[in-house]
């Protein structure tokens, strides 16, 4: 049986309450919208790039605890990383929450983001956790169409 405390861990609840980088950037290089039409979650993500490196990042929007905490921890994780490194983390994160990557046994670059592994037990919430990562993927790719989880 899925364990509720696996999903709502203290770190996640803390990021939900006090999201990091919850701000608008003054000189963003990229602004990217993402939304989950099923539940109305919405994120506006901004990146300031220095060459290939994410120099600063900010997000705004509304969503459930999982989506907000995921956004907050995503911004903390990608700051200072290269676009290529972000790409790898996004791919690994999405695989992890879908249950396609076990962060304890398989090589990965997720670090603290591993606490979202419990989301795989809650299929209805996978999209909530993945939204911010889908959005940052789109932001650093060539296409800047708004991201939808549907």
């Amino acid at each position, binding site marked *: *049986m899925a364990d*509720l405390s696996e999903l709502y861990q203290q770190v996640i*609840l803390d990021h939900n309450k006090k999201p990091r980088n919850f701000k608008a950037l003054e000189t963003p290089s990229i602004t990217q919208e993402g939304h989950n039409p*099923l*539940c*109305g979650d919405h994120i506006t993500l901004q990146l300031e790039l220095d060459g290939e490196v994410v120099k600063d990042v900010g997000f705004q929007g*509304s969503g459930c*605890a*999982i989506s907000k905490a995921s956004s907050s921890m995503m911004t903390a994780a990608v700051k200072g990383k290269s676009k290529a490194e972000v790409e790898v983390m996004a791919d690994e994160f999405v695989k992890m929450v879908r249950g396609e990557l076990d962060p304890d046994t398989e090589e990965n670059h997720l670090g603290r983001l591993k606490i979202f592994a419990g989301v795989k037990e809650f299929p*209805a919430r996978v999209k909530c956790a993945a939204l911010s990562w889908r959005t940052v993927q789109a932001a650093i790719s060539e296409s800047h169409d708004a991201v939808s989880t549907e």
Partner: protein
Amino acid sequence: MQTQTASEFDVAKVRADFPILTQTVNGKPLVYLDNAATSHKPQCVIDTINHFYAAHNSNVHRGVHYLSQLATRELEGARDIVKKFLNAASDKEVIFTKGTTDGINLVAQSYGRKFIKEGEEIIISALEHHANIVPWQMLCEQVGAVLRVIPINDDGELLMEEYEKLLNPKTKFVSVNYVSNALGTINPVKRIIELAHAQDVPVLIDGAQSAPHLKVDVRELDCDFYAFSGHKVCGPTGIGILYGKQHLLEQMPPVQGGGDMIKVVTFEKTTYNDLPYKFEAGTPHIEGGIGLGRAIQYLESVGLDNIAAYEHELLEYATELIGGIPGVRIIGTAKDKASVLSFLINDIHPHDIGTILDQEGIAIRAGHHCAQPVMQRFNVPSTARASFAFYNTKEEIDALANAIHTVIEVFG
């Protein structure tokens, strides 16, 4: 309405009719409080559908053989049950559809495209489900008509004086729900119809949420159209009913062409069939119609008045118990309400509420309830919604209250 005490209504007996209710979810007894989304099916409806396929399966309205006659008789028998349920004047006024959405689209595309012209107006309300907004927006785009919206107050009640102001010589149609799916408000539809009829404007009532809870007499109500869904009245999905006054249906062109809706087809000209078949192109959802007929018989055996009285008791109990929990805010506090409780807990997102309740075996809806304008009116992205049926119990509402306390604990 006559009030009835819970002791006269035997909920344990009713629950025994619904096999799905005995299961556990996440190790807890299922507490199903998502009845506004869909209702469960009593064994008699399941058996009826089963029996149709096991013993009577055949196509309808065309075969001279034994099974086809049986199937036709059963489906037409179901139409007759619906006719009596609604107190329609004739079987010709009862059209099988896919559901409420399908019925509203039929009226918009048939009546609307024929009779509503550029610059003319259609009135809906701020409480509508998307199914009673989008078909009219599509029609407005097609013919150049204008959509007008009756506003609501902070309790989620229609502002009737604003409705009266909206009615004008350009108004050509009014379409409102009887009961709001998002808030549970019961609208004064009789008065809405009277006011529209005073200006010769026809009215469609979206009955998706009223059919399971309220006895509706379409002739007493004098609505021109009434649409509802089978799956919300303990019947199958994919079947619904559009009631329409015969003189209106006769003037309306079919929306879909095909088999069953014709009398004679040549490559030069096709003569359409009589009512109601004119609007039922193709092989119908036969077992759906038969299952719906059985579901209505079942509801009638329980008694619509008993159902309404018991559900009202559940609503009052839940409103007091859940509304009394510190941090809970009820959205939708109309004086006249059906058994829907939309709520928020502090600033906790309804999706998180839904997940935690699900762990306790409690099924509710979390989201915008396909009524985004209602959410916008209350300035919230979504709500948690518990909706009660006559097979729910006060003990289940106690379980909901306990689980809400768990939600508050988790989020501190």
